[in-house]
C-alpha cells in the first residue's frame, strides 16, 4: 500500500489532522457557549462533528486510499445507517390525515 518513503509525509499529515481536530473541538465547545437556538446549534455542532469524523476516517483510517470494495461496503452501510436513523423519525412525525 504505502511505500516507506511516503511515511514521513504521512506523519506530517497525521500531525496536521491532529491539530485540526483539536482546533475543531475547541470551536464546537465555543459555539455551545453562545447558546444559539436549537436548530442552528444542532446544525453547527453536527457540521463540525462531521468534518472531524471525516478527517479521522479519511486520514487515520486511510479511507482516502482504500479499495473500491471497501467503498462499496461502506456506501451501503451509510445508506442503511440513514434508513435506521431517520426512518423511525419520519414515520412517527408523519401525521395521520383523515
Amino acid at each position, binding site marked *: 500500500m504505502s511505500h516507506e518513503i511516503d511515511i514521513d509525509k504521512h506523519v506530517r499529515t497525521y500531525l496536521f489532522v491532529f491539530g485540526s481536530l483539536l482546533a475543531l473541538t475547541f470551536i464546537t465547545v465555543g459555539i455551545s457557549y453562545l447558546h444559539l437556538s436549537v436548530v442552528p446549534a444542532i446544525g453547527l455542532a453536527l457540521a463540525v462533528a462531521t468534518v472531524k469524523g471525516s478527517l479521522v476516517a479519511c486520514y487515520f483510517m486511510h479511507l482516502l486510499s482504500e479499495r473500491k*470494495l471497501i467503498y462499496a461496503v461502506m456506501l*451501503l*452501510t451509510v445508506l*442503511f445507517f440513514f*434508513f*435506521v436513523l431517520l*426512518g*423511525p423519525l*419520519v*414515520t*412517527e412525525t*408523519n*401525521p*395521520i*390525515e383523515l
Partner: protein
Amino acid sequence: MEDTHHEEHHHEELGFWRKYVFSVDHKVIGIQYAITGLLFLFFGFCLMMLMRWQLAFPGRALPIIGGLFGDSRMPSGVMLPEFYNQLGAMHGTIMVFLGVVPLGVGGFGNFVVPLQIGAPDMAFPRLNMASYWSFFLGGVTMLVSFFVPGGAAQAGWTAYPPLAETTPAPGQALWLIGMVFLITSSLLGSVNFITTIIQLRAKGLSFMRLPFFVWSQLVTAFLLLLAFPPLEAAGFMQLMDIVAGTSFFLPSGLVVSGQALEVAGGGSPILWQHLFWFLAHPEVYVLILPALGIVSEIVANNTRKPLWGYKSLVYSVVFLGFMSFIVWAHHMFITGMGTVMSSFFQTTTMIISIPSVVILTVLLLSLWGGSIRFNTPMLFALAFLPMFAIGGLTGLPLGLSSTDIHLHDTYYVIGHFHYVVAPGSIFALFAGIYYWYPKATGRKMSELLGKLHFWPSFICMNFIFFPMLIQGMAGLNRRMYDGGASYAHAQPVLHLNGVISAAAWIMALAQVFFVINFFRSLKKGERVGTNPWQATTLEWAAPSPPPHGNFATEPTVYRGPYEYSVPGAAQDFSPQFNPDGGSLSENQTA
C-alpha cells in the same frame, strides 16, 4: 491460521476435543450447527404441540404427561395462561433464531459454501468456532430461562414493550441476554461468510459462475451483518429498562393492572417496534434465502438442465436483499402511522414481491421440459415451490394497510408466515439434508424412508396451516389462550382447532421416519463416491466426506454452475471442475 506452515505436518494428531468439539474445520462446525439446529427445531415443535392441546381442548387436563410440568406451569395437567404465553414466545424465538437460521446459515452455509467455492476452509476458522459457541451459549441461556422464577419470556418473539417489561423480569432479561449471544454469533458468522466468498473463490470462479446457493448466502450474510445490530441496540435498551429502571420504551403515565408504574416515563414503545422490525423483516429473508439457494441447487440437479435465467436469479436476490431494509414498517400499519409513510411502505412492500416472484418463476420454468428425477430431495424441493407461493401470495393482503387492519394479529398472519417458513424453509432444509448427507457422511439416506417422511409431512403441513388462513379471515385473534372459545364471532371456525392440532401431532409421527433414516443411514446407508447425484458444482469434486482442507489439489473452475445436458457432451452434466466439458467421468456410484 498464520502458523500453517509449521503445523501442517502434525495436524492429524488432533485429539477428540479439538477434532469434534472445539473444531475449527468448517465442515465439523457446519454439522454442529445443523445438529444443534435440528434439536432446537424439534424442541420448538414440542412447545407448539403442547400449545395445540390447549387450543384444541381448552382447560382440559393433558393426559399422561400433563402432570410432569409442575404446579407453576400445569397444575394437575391443566395449562396456566402464563405457561401458554411462555410456550408461544419461546416457540417463535427458538424456531427462528435457534432452529431455522442456524440450520440454513450456520449449518448449510458453513458446510457447503467453502466447498462450493473451492476453498480449503472459511477465511477465519477460529472466528467460525467462536460463532458456533456463542450461538450455543445463546441457546443454553434461552433454555435456562424456563427454570427461573416466573418462567421464560412471555411477551412473544417480538418482545413488544410495555408488555415485555411488565411480565416477570428474570425470563425476559435472560431472553435479551440470549439474544445478545445469538446476535454476536450471527455477526461473527456473517463477517466470515462475506470475507470467505469474496476472497477464497477458486481460480476461474467469477461471481457470475457462483452457484446460486453461494449468492443466497452472500446476500443473507449482508442482511445479518447490517440488520441485526439495531436489534442489539434495542435489546440493550430493553435490558436497561428491566435491570436499571430506565424508561426507554415506557411512556409517561403507564398504568398496569390498575397501578401506575413507578418509572420516570417519557419513553417510546414504538421505538422498539421500529428497531425490532428493522431487523426482523430482513430476518424473514434470512430464513428464506438459504432455502431458495438449496432448492435452486436441487432443481437444477434433478431436472438435468440449466436453471432458466441464472442471471435474473442473481439480480433478483441482490435487489431483494437491498429492498428488505426499507419495508419494515409494514408490520406496524396499525400503530397510527401517517398516510404518506404508510403509502411509502406499502409501495416498497409491493416492489419487494417482484424479485420474489421472479425467483419463483425461474425455478418453476426450470422444470419445463426437464427429465425430472423424483428422489427425496427433489420431492421436498418441488413441494417448496407451491408452499412458498401460497406463503408469498397470502402476504400481499398483509402488505396493504387497508386489508391489514382486518387481518392484523389474526391466525391469518400465522398461516401466512408459517407457509413461508414451515413447508417453505423447513422443507427446503430437509431437501438440503437429503441432498448433502452423502457428501457429509459418504452414504445416502434411504429413499423409502425419505418418501415415508415426505408425504405425510406434506399433507399434514397443509392441514395445519390452511385452516389457520380461514380462521384468521373469520377474525380469530392469534394470541387467545382458549383458542377463541370465549368469542362469539370465532364459533364457526372453532372446530378447525381440533383439525389443526390432530394434523400437528400426526406430522410429529412422520418425523420419526426422518430420525430413523438419519441415524440408520450413518451405518447402513448405501456407500457413495464423490459425486452421487451427477452434479456440476465444486463440492462434488471433493471426497465424501471431505478431509480437513477439503480438496486434494486446488480446483480450477472452467464454466458456469449448472451446465447440464450440454449438446455434444459425452454425459448429461459438465462439472465446473472438469477442463473438457464433462467427458471425464468422475467415480460415480453404480
